[in-house]
């Protein structure tokens, strides 16, 4: 049985840029103060997530929606265990597979076949075991002889096929996906959907972040709408989509008003 629970999770992190990335300038600033001090404070604290609480159980298909910068990806990373909450707590059971970025864990200079083994290792699967799965992965990607070529020669769509096929070669308990998957072609999407439906049938949890309401509506049963790192709406998917549409309209109205004024 898999399970995810977030209690008052907040994530806050400083964005370092410009001279705060330089040790020399930071050191100088701490000794001389004055003008240099301001340079070294090129530091912005971002509160990407604010007191997020929810619970997911086996069989849940959960959507994260919201505008760009609402905190969807940060939340996905917290769920994947990549970011540790700076406040609150996250508890989860089950094997987590995250598909946040296609290229990650793929080595551009290695061939498709080698990458199957390589990415498998990052997932905790030993090469010998992965080799047994390689044939079915290759079949799922439909990439054929391209798998003998270095991955850097692949198109975005081919990368997606490969990354998805590898990551889902064992049924994860918790599957975390960012919206990039939707860049695949329609036939592949249908195939991916069938595979995911199979997992969720086997009591896995799916968390999907997307801007495509059609996709979200078809794949998910529940969801949450994030706005500036806070939960605006959480509940059945129809409600969330309605809230998202309303929010978008409101934002557009505000913009139109500002433009008119």
């Amino acid at each position, binding site marked *: 049985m898999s399970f995810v629970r977030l209690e008052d999770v907040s994530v806050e992190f400083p964005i370092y840029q410009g001279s705060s990335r330089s040790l020399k300038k930071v050191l100088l600033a701490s000794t001389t103060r004055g003008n240099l001090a301001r340079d070294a404070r090129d530091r912005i604290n971002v509160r990407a997530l604010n007191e997020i609480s929810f619970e997911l159980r086996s069989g849940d298909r959960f959507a994260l929606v919201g505008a760009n910068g609402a905190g969807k990806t940060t939340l996905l990373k917290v769920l994947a265990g990549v970011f540790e909450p700076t*406040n609150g707590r996250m508890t989860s059971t089950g094997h987590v597979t995250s598909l946040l970025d296609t290229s990650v864990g793929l080595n551009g200079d290695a061939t498709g076949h080698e990458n199957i083994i390589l990415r498998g290792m990052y997932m905790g699967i030993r090469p010998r075991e992965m080799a047994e799965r390689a044939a079915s992965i290759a079949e799922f990607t439909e990439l054929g002889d391209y798998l003998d070529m270095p991955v850097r020669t692949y198109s975005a769509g081919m990368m997606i096929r490969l990354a998805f096929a590898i990551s889902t070669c064992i049924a994860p308990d918790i599957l975390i996906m960012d919206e990039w998957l939707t860049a695949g072609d329609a036939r592949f999407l249908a195939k991916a959907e069938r595979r995911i439906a199979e997992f969720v049938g086997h009591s896995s949890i799916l968390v999907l972040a997307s801007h495509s309401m059609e996709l979200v509506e078809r794949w998910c049963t529940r969801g949450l709408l994030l706005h500036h790192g806070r939960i605006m709406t959480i509940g059945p998917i129809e409600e969330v989509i309605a809230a998202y549409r309303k929010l978008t309209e409101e934002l557009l109205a505000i913009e139109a008003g500002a433009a008119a004024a």
Partner: protein
Amino acid sequence: MRFARAVSGVGRATTFQDGCRVTQLEAVSEPAADTIVDLLASSTRVALAVADIRDGFAQRWLWIQLAHQDMRLRYRGSMLGPFWQTITTVVLISSMGVIYSKLFHTPMKDYLPLLTVGLIIWNFIAGMITEGCGTFDAVRGIIQQVKLPFSLHAFRLVYRNILVLAHSFVIIPIVLIIFPHPIAWMRLVEIFPGLLLAAVNGVAISIFLGMICARFRDVPPIVASVVQVIFFLTPIMWPPAALGSNQWWAVLNPLYTVIDVVRSPLLGMPTSPHSWSILAIVTLCNCALSFMFFTRFRARIAFWV
């Protein structure tokens, strides 16, 4: 499933129960003034850091495989493969050997083995330090997507450098056959604790530098130039005896102690009396410093890279 009990430990603890993996991520918050909470938080941090190092080491198969993969990919398309490095070292040693044995008025048969062993061990140390700048930055893609113990990246880096060392180590017996030295066979076992300590220091340094360099982007070039300067300050190309009465300058150099404890047994020379103790103390300090840093900032690494 008894959930609460399984995670009653601290922060990021991964336990196996009922064949299921239980993960808990708890905030290691930075409370303002509340000292009690602060104490709790720092003990949590320590436990998390210890768990990270333990889990990282436990996944040996992974970092060993990844290091081998690194080697394969690094030398892809070159016929000699990792032996390229070996050839480079041979060329460097033979050309430097000719010139510097004249400069130091030392016979070739004494100088060349000294230089060879010294340079090979130095390459090992310097490799770990310079690559240590990218411990986390070089694998940022992985850190951003897959939850792995951070220490695993340091183990992978050090193990990769051990593999490189192994490829150039083959030069040493060849040089020793051409220029025979009285080898005390019993003493050869001494090189293993020496190399082990070097590797332990390598892990500590690559974690420490990896974090600093992820946070401050101007550090890697600084490290690179410092390493270059240290190369000339350390008795690698020259015997410490050449300093005459100032020999202690060299003897106290921690990097020299690493070279000394490996080189002396190989060349049948006495190890300098303080080398082992200096090396032991430096290793302890190094690990302590690195661990403190790791404990404090571990959770930030994912945001820095």
